[in-house]
């Protein structure tokens, strides 16, 4: 009897395994498209689609669980009565090739959407999902998951975790669905040898040593618990925030949303939930025009404090997973790493 927690999958068996898996569920994996972008894509034909495990998927899994725009209800007005009708349910989905940071982010989202109220549509999608991660042997240009404690390999949370050992994957199973899967498709796998474990650990050590950036995130979190951020830092950051909202939209742990009605005709429409960004002035402005936040000085204060101060205080962990997606895309260059640098540099001039 082989141990069902840890197994080896020869690379030749990957496609056959995925083919079996895709019979019972939608298979989503990173695919490099014709325009050179690597995106998580629902794969309908494994023979004509090449899964891209060499590049970081452009977006995280967030759009699959909290879509940019999601219909919460259709409404119909007739006379002065109206009726809300709820939209369709989720489908079974297996996500393959998910990076450690993105799964960590999903686990954080689970927390947000379960307390105090369970968000039914989020949970519907979540309970229909199985996540297969791929440990990172080589961090991408802007990654810093080492600093956020969310990679390069994971200890828990995954359905299955794949580690690339060259011609084979070292596969670990999480509880529940992942273990069931290994049990069901055990014949694609072989036993782990001592050699495999040695190589796996060596790769882990090497991965940790390859980060381009040294982000003092933990230091910043502790500092924020103890002291106020100098006002000049907030103002310096706000002056270069051009309100695109991009950082919040690409962030796998930014879950703030808006709920609005979109009329489709005179007497019908949809109520949609859509991504929102706390960096916008209108995010907090009240109907009468009063705004408790002064955007011109504090555009980024909520976002950074939420991630690094409040979440650190309540969960013991910052809600930044070091995926690096917000780095390099900010129009004014004032992403979270710039903030951390400004905050921590102060101490050792």
């Amino acid at each position, binding site marked *: 009897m082989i141990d069902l927690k840890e197994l080896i999958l020869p690379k030749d068996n990957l496609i056959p395994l995925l083919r079996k898996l895709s019979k019972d569920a939608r298979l989503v994996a990173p695919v490099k498209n014709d325009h050179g972008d690597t995106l998580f894509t629902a794969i309908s034909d494994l023979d004509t689609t090449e899964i891209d495990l060499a590049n970081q998927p452009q977006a995280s899994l967030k759009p699959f669980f909290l879509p940019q725009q999601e219909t919460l209800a259709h409404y119909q007005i007739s006379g002065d009565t109206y009726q809300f009708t709820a939209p369709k*349910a989720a489908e079974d989905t297996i996500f393959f090739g998910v990076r450690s940071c993105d799964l960590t982010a999903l686990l954080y989202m689970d927390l947000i959407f379960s307390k105090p109220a369970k968000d039914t549509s989020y949970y519907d999608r979540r309970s229909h999902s199985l996540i297969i991660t791929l440990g990172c042997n080589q961090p991408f240009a802007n990654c810093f998951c080492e600093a956020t404690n969310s990679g390069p390999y994971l200890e828990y949370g995954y359905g299955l975790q794949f580690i690339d050992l060259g011609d084979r994957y070292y596969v670990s199973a999480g509880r529940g669905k992942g273990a069931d899967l290994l049990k069901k498709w055990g014949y694609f796998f072989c036993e782990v040898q001592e050699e495999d474990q040695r190589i796996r650990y060596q790769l882990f050590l090497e991965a940790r040593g390859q980060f381009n950036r040294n982000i003092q995130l933990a230091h910043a979190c502790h500092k924020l618990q103890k002291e106020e951020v100098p006002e000049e830092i907030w103002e310096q950051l706000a002056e270069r925030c051009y309100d695109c909202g991009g950082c919040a939209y690409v962030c796998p742990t930014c879950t703030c949303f808006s709920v609005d009605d979109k009329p489709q005709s005179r007497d019908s429409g949809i109520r949609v939930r859509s991504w929102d960004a706390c960096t916008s002035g209108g995010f907090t402005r009240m109907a009468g025009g009063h705004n408790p936040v002064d955007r011109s000085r504090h555009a980024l204060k909520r976002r950074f404090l939420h991630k690094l101060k409040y979440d650190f205080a309540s969960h013991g962990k910052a809600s930044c997973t070091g995926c690096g997606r917000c780095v390099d895309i900010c129009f004014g260059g004032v992403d979270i790493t710039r903030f951390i640098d400004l905050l921590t540099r102060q101490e050792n001039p």
Partner: protein
Amino acid sequence: MNKTFIPARAIIREIIRENDQISTFRLELIDKTKPFSFLPGQFLMVSVPHCGEAAISISSSPDALPLIDLSIRRAGELTTAIHSMEKGARLGLRGPFGKAFPVEKFSGRDLLFVAGGIGLAPLKSVIDHCLFQSGLDDDAVSGIRLLYGSRSPSDIAFTGTIGLWREQGIDVRLTVDEKDEHWTDHVGLVTELLEDITLDSNSISLICGPPVMIRSVIAKLTEMGCDDTNIFTTLERHMKCGMGLCGHCHLDGRLVCLDGPVFSVSELNTMDVMELSR
């Protein structure tokens, strides 16, 4: 299917015009799939198709159920749409949400209510509830006083209710910022009315109104020796869900929709809050 976001339907039974800007909409739920109850200080997410939702606090007492009053000031697109509705029209409701006033602590205590403009709405729920309780039990509350500020005599809302309260022995004092030729009562800030008030150490104060008013009343009460744990206020924030998910009402590490909207001043003192700073 996201049941959490599907509102229940309610019908407008009656509309009471409070002033030019404020009307009270007396509602009754049509969809009664589960029992509905609430406590004074809690709010509802009110839906109008095409206009979306807004958080509005309940202004009637739970004792008036199945009728629910929402006193609404015309401020944005949604509230304007509600104001154009007539008796028999339908609204959507979700809730109740938020932390209520700790009414259970009020038994046997002096209560001082300080309100400005539409801010009387959530306090009205408490006052009516206390009056109902005192009808059942003489010790429910020992004395109720209300200080109420408005911009001008024509802006005074809830005049009918105030009349009834006076009949029931509540000490109501009014003030306006700008008087007209008929006004003989006090002119000036609501804090000035506090000058003539004496408070014992056991009194509880409840404040609701514009941020500037809340700030100055809290300062005055503290100066008068009121304990922070005995002063309560209710905060207004932009909200989209009402249940701690959307992030809009985030307030220095807390969420107004869950941890509030009712806060004691002792809680607020540990936070960075617009109503207390600047």
